[in-house]
């Protein structure tokens, strides 16, 4: 299978909240040192936000010849990837973060880029020797700088060049507090990724997962690369099934701190938390509707394990499934109208779907006798889940419209698949060399990376939304 990458014509028009808004019709560098964008002469000067929204249209404004020159194909493992140089950013060691190191790692982890020899002293104002970089095998080059501001924040800047064409592709400046330097690096990687592939990057998103060391459990929130981890919950009792709210501000999860499974909701920034489902028996498997107004949960309050809907406050509880079997692991489709879930009403666990308002569930998985842990891609087209075959549990995908089933992992103890919000990667937990580890994979299973090698058992990863 081949995939083609082309540069979109839209200039980088990224508006990070921490930045002052650019002046209308900003031109290159000297006019506005705080926030600069480069526009190709053909593209009309327009308000940055409109430029961002009109990215697809702006593409059409670029000359055809320019697009054709930067076309890269990816096919198979080790197939051609986009070679890019990312040099050390000027003064990044003074900021305490290797901005360029984070950008390089992000781009390589996506599987789409290969970083070439990037030695050299550059920043965003440099004029690169393009023949030299072509000699190093680069098609693109990124560099930048960090500068400490008087108020203690850092002014982080970058620039991206098309080495093939010898052209400046634009850049950005952003002012961030020290705690957000990693985030700034991830945003740069996102901008480079988007500019060169046309897809939205996920490097500045977050993931949550659970760790266990002896009888200590933590619920952690980290960058999508697994670094910069902060602890949201410390407990001596198990924590399972974390679920990001669609706005990325809170996490629902199941905690056993009171001696049974209870669903909690916690504001990530403040730590404020509330038990929202604490009915008789076990309360688990929280899943948010895409509009954040409803939670699906598994409750045993009427006997058995059945799926219910409720408000995020825990009120207005209504039952969705009506069986004497186990119905659990609900997940909403992106339009919020359908719920996929696991049921063993047919004798062994399979994945079904039902209208969110109730109705007759329809079976979805037919391969093998054990399919659990459904996850839906953001475009609603792909279902990821765990299939058990013999003693092996493997992440599997199904094209919902066509029914094609594909195994995407090469390990045998997988659990908990979760899609990145751009739909290009799946994160999951598995066991390797006796430890629980987190992995990401492209949807075709061709490019996989391991996220954490700290030696701590990690499980239940869940990928957060865009717009941290």
């Amino acid at each position: 299978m081949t995939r083609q990458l082309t540069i979109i014509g839209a200039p980088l028009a990224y508006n990070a909240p921490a930045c002052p808004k650019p002046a209308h019709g900003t031109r290159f560098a000297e006019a506005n040192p705080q926030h600069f964008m480069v526009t190709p002469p053909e593209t009309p000067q327009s308000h940055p936000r409109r430029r961002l929204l009109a990215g697809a249209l702006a593409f059409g404004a670029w000359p055809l010849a320019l697009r054709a020159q930067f076309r890269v194909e990816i096919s198979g493992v080790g197939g051609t990837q986009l070679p890019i140089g990312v040099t050390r950013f000027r003064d990044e060691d003074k900021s305490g973060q290797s901005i360029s190191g984070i950008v390089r790692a992000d781009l390589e982890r996506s599987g789409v880029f290969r970083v070439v020899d990037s030695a050299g002293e550059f920043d965003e104002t440099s004029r690169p020797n393009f023949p030299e970089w072509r000699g190093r095998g680069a098609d693109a080059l990124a560099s930048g700088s960090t500068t400490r501001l008087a108020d203690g924040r850092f002014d982080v800047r970058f620039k991206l060049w098309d080495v093939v064409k010898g052209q400046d592709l634009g850049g950005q400046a952003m002012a961030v507090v020290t705690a957000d330097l990693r985030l700034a690096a991830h945003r740069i990687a996102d901008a480079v990724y988007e500019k060169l592939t046309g897809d939205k990057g996920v490097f500045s998103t977050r993931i949550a997962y659970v760790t266990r060391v002896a009888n200590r459990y933590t619920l952690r929130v980290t960058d999508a690369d697994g670094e910069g981890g902060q602890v949201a919950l410390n407990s001596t009792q198990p924590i399972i099934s974390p679920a990001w709210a669609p706005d990325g501000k809170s996490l629902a999860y199941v905690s056993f701190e009171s001696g049974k499974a209870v669903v909690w909701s916690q504001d990530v920034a403040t730590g404020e938390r509330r038990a929202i489902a604490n009915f008789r028996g076990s309360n688990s498997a929280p899943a948010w509707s895409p509009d954040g107004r409803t939670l699906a949960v598994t409750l045993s309050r009427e006997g058995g394990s059945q799926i219910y809907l409720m408000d995020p406050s825990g009120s207005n509880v209504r039952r969705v499934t009506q069986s004497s079997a186990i119905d659990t692991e609900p997940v909403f489709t992106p339009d919020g109208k359908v719920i996929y879930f696991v049921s063993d009403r047919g004798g062994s666990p399979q994945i079904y779907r039902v209208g969110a308002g109730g109705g007759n569930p329809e079976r979805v998985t037919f391969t093998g006798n054990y399919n659990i842990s459904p996850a839906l891609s953001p475009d609603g087209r792909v279902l990821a889940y765990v299939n058990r075959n013999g003693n092996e549990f493997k992440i599997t995908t199904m094209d919902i419209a066509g029914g094609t089933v594909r195994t995407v992992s090469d390990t045998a103890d997988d659990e908990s698949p979760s899609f990145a919000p751009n739909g290009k990667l799946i994160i999951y937990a598995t066991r390797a060399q006796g430890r629980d580890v987190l992995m990401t994979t492209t949807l075709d299973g061709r490019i996989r990376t391991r996220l954490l090698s700290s030696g701590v058992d990690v499980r239940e990863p869940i990928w957060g939304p865009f717009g941290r």
Partner: protein
Amino acid sequence: MTTLRITVSAAVLSAVLAGCGSSVKLDDAAPVVDARPNPNAAGANSGARPGGAAQSAVTTVDVGANNQAASNLARVVYFDFDSYVLRDEYKPLIESHARSLSAVKTKKMVIEGHTDERGGREYNLALGQRRAEAVAKSMMLLGASDGQIEAVSYGKERPASEGHDESAWAKNRRAELKDR
């Protein structure tokens, strides 16, 4: 954490029934919130303030174990793989607990269902729930009333044995009967 299991005769059992701990309501189990100062707590939205809130703020909350009632007497019923059928050998145990509940209407118990480590967490939580409910139903047929028993599940989260072979798995497929 080790699960304390004491095997006592029925006579001793009835003697200690009076001193059991009360049930832990969720309201009592207030989490021990970490008192670390959080500079980002106030208005942590996208700030235009200089030196303002980080967008990556996460506040840590600590919770501890709240139900370490030392007088818990555990009784254990074991299950076959993928099964929630009560084996004959455990029926006398269930019967004696049912009788003790039937005799003292204020007495309460919790039945915790568990599974071995194989399979998904949520599905196993539901399987453990099924096992606990099987024991509960059996006790209610034998004289206990519905309000005296709560069936809960730990799924595969609290194994009795951490091994990865059938002998460990067999020890983990269980239901534990605890006084409340």
